[in-house]
């Protein structure tokens, strides 16, 4: 592959048109990616604000900062904002939108108008949800379990439910778009086994989006209809089964965890390969483990229901399948580790975020073994152990991976560099702060502190306080990138087409890329990470 373009055009996708309308009506996947970045960041700030309130409240056991009712709304809105509006779209919709067509050597995604529509649908869903927050919030927890959500709660379940329902379609359309793009828009010579691993990961994610999201959409709609019009689907007074809701809800919402974690896994493969200057060890195993995770991910949902009244034999089946799905994740981790062996590791900021990811994902993944174990899950279910576990995966894993990818592709997206030292520092702060925040919660959980508690017994205070202290460090760690990246966007050093000397089609066009990506159709003749085959040239 070529390392740099011969000529740099002064025109790029950012500056070729500059009116507001040219952004709001754009069909350019790169601009849509940036628009997602702005809207997801807004949702992240909202979610983080609620997280801060939660930790502040839990600094003391008495529940004296917020009232119980407000606290319940706060943790619900934290969950809704973070799950549906940050974690699910973060990597696929921001980084996926930006780099996927570039990686494939395509001019755009298959359906650019649909792509823009997805963004509008996303924003509409976000608007409904923010509306629900402004009109007093929701207090059902992000899981909307009936009968509380259908008759118990006095909050804006309908508005938030509609918001989630609408956003679901954004996810579906994005997934559909990506799948078609990967099937139909690859450059000549770009066979499946020459695809970057990020593409494999995004493909697997898109599969989950297409197959799972409709189910949660209809399930949330059923709750909304039951609440609004009194139709009975889950109402125990009519003989309905509230547990059926949980089945349908987790049929999507467990695979949704893979929507969150698979694309960051793909990012990790890209970044490790680039900064190790090496092939990813066991390319096809890493590629197929993504698909395996996506498919097996659909077979494990009822491990969220071990104490919810499902049959013991069914619980065994799901426990077994859950252990099985741990294997592909383990395979990925081992392959990344092996990739580092005899590498030539260039310590730039994205690699620091990758190391953070490896550490946190390791803990998150391994603690999954506890929750998958039936006998232990009876004890730790619905406690802070579970809270810590999924934060390690979803924040430690997914958000670290998002930042790794953001730092990796930032020069491509903006054409500018950021301060490497500051970036490494914030990776360190996030890693340390994250562990301080969430590791104590494992201990709290095993001690038996239930989740979603506004007040708690006083003997749990020390650990909770440690967690709150860690959260401040974590907050600074997340604030820092917002500052230096914003600075970089306007004032950063020019990056050039390929600052990391990486392989991959996205690095063969200029930074920021041309409005239609490539001057001429790229033709691919080799695998994705042939670092060892080539002489490295400085552009």
């Amino acid at each position, binding site marked *: 592959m070529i390392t740099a373009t011969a000529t740099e055009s002064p025109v790029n996708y950012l500056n070729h048109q500059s009116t507001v309308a040219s952004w709001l009506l754009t069909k350019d996947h790169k601009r849509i990616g940036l628009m997602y970045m702005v809207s997801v960041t807004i949702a992240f700030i909202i979610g983080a604000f609620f997280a801060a309130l939660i930790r502040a409240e839990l600094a003391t056991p008495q529940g004296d900062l917020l009232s*119980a009712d407000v606290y319940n709304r706060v943790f619900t809105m934290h969950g809704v904002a973070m799950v549906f509006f940050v974690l699910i779209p973060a990597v696929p919709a921001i980084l996926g939108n930006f780099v996927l067509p570039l990686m494939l050597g395509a001019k755009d995604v298959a359906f650019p108008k649909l792509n823009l529509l997805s963004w509008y649908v996303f924003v509409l869903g976000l608007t409904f949800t923010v509306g629900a927050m402004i009109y007093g919030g929701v207090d059902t927890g992000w899981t909307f*379990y009936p009968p509380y959500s259908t008759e118990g709660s006095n909050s804006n379940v309908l508005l938030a439910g509609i918001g989630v329902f609408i956003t679901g379609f954004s996810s579906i359309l994005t997934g559909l778009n990506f799948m078609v793009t990967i099937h139909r828009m690859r450059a000549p010579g770009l066979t499946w086994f020459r695809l970057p691993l990020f593409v494999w990961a995004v493909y697997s994610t898109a599969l989950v989006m297409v197959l799972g999201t409709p189910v949660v959409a209809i399930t949330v709609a059923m709750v909304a209809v039951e609440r609004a019009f009194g139709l009975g689907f889950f109402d125990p007074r009519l003989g309905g089964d509230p547990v059926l809701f949980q089945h349908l809800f987790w049929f999507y919402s467990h695979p949704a965890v893979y929507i969150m974690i698979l694309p960051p896994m793909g990012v990790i493969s890209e970044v490790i390969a680039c900064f190790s200057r*090496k092939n990813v060890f*066991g390319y096809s195993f890493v590629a197929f483990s993504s698909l395996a995770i996506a498919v097996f991910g659909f077979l494990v949902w009822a491990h969220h229901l071990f104490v919810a009244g499902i049959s013991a034999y069914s619980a065994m089946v799901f426990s077994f399948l859950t252990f099985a799905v741990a294997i592909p994740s383990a395979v990925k981790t081992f392959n990344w580790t092996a990739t580092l062996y005899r590498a030539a*590791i260039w310590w730039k900021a994205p690699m620091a975020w990758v190391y953070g990811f490896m550490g946190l994902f390791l803990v998150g993944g391994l603690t999954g073994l506890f929750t998958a174990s039936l006998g232990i899950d009876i004890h730790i279910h619905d406690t802070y152990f579970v809270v810590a576990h999924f934060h390690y995966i979803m924040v430690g894993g997914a958000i670290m991976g998002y930042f790794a990818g953001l730092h990796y592709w930032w020069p491509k997206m903006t054409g500018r560099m950021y301060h490497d030292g500051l970036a490494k520092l914030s990776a360190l702060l996030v890693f340390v702060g994250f562990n301080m925040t969430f590791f104590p919660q494992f201990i709290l959980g095993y001690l038996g502190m239930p989740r979603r508690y506004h007040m708690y017994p006083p003997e749990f205070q020390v650990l909770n306080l440690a967690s709150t202290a860690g959260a401040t460090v974590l907050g600074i760690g997340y604030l820092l990138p917002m500052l230096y990246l914003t600075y970089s966007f306007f004032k950063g050093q020019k990056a050039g087409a390929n600052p990391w000397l990486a392989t991959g089609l996205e690095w063969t066009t200029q930074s920021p890329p041309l409005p239609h990506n490539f001057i001429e159709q790229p033709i691919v003749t080799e695998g994705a990470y042939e670092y060892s085959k*080539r002489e490295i040239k400085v552009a």
Partner: protein
Amino acid sequence: MLSGIPLFPVQGSTLAPEVDALYFFIVAVTSFFAVLVSVLVIYFGFKYRDDTGLKVGAPITGSIPLEIGWSLVPFFIAMGIFVWASVVFFHSVRPPDQTVEIYATGKRWMWRFQHVDGQREINQLHVPIGRPVKVTFTSEDVLHDLYIPVFRTKADAIPGRYSSIWFTPTKTGEFHLFCAEYCGTKHSGMIGSVFVMEPDEYQAWLSSGGLTGSMSARGEQLFQQLACNTCHLNDGTGRGPSLVGVFGSPVKLSTGQTITADETYVRESILTPQLKLVNGYQPLMPTFQGLINEEGLLSLIEYVKSLGESRTGGQQASTAAPAAAPATAPAK
């Protein structure tokens, strides 16, 4: 109990050491892998660093034996944990035959307990040490979850049916009891205490206070008040089936299905009698929905259970005594 910073919960039941043993085993296994990967990653990070960014790594693409190895080894370890965890699980969900029966209802935001002998309490639960105790419970409104951390057990309370947990306490004292399934505003206030007492203290406690008669006696009273006894004659000649010895036995339904008469079935038969009609009987029974509350239902169930017990060792040996069915009892 409230002093110091607890880092590990008290082991308060026979189940707790079992769960904890498995827990420590998994801690050991996962720590091993976490340390292994971390050490390798950090070591490689130092050993193979290159600050120029211009060198390239060794041309290694993969190794099939390694891939197979690190797929199979975790798989077998995971299967080992799965089997062990399932054994612990079955111990924790399958109660022994002879238990102290306690009934409970969860409602926003309190737990109400009833003892068979008639004692009632709210957000407090008194149990004897060293005897298996089974708590059967339901919810009057939304989902709740009865959770006692020191006993390492919990189960969701679901409106419309019964759940249960069981435990054999091994330590006396006062322990936390939580609602672990989010249930609305005062979810975190739906907590209480379990008091584990010496057997004689427990007996004294049981007989203290103004008793209103045992649960089955209350159930029998209701049985007559609601005129159940006019149809459900004990000799089986009534318009409804005899309830003697029914509890815990298989019942053949008019649809041809056979189901076991457990708490949920008795409850359903009172509230929605037509739904699962006993084979050979007419759908004559009216619903008692709205005429009886959750606690009354539990009393009736306890009464039906007591009818089964009176039959044990009685006239017909073949009529499955509740305590029979050895095949379904715990293996050990």
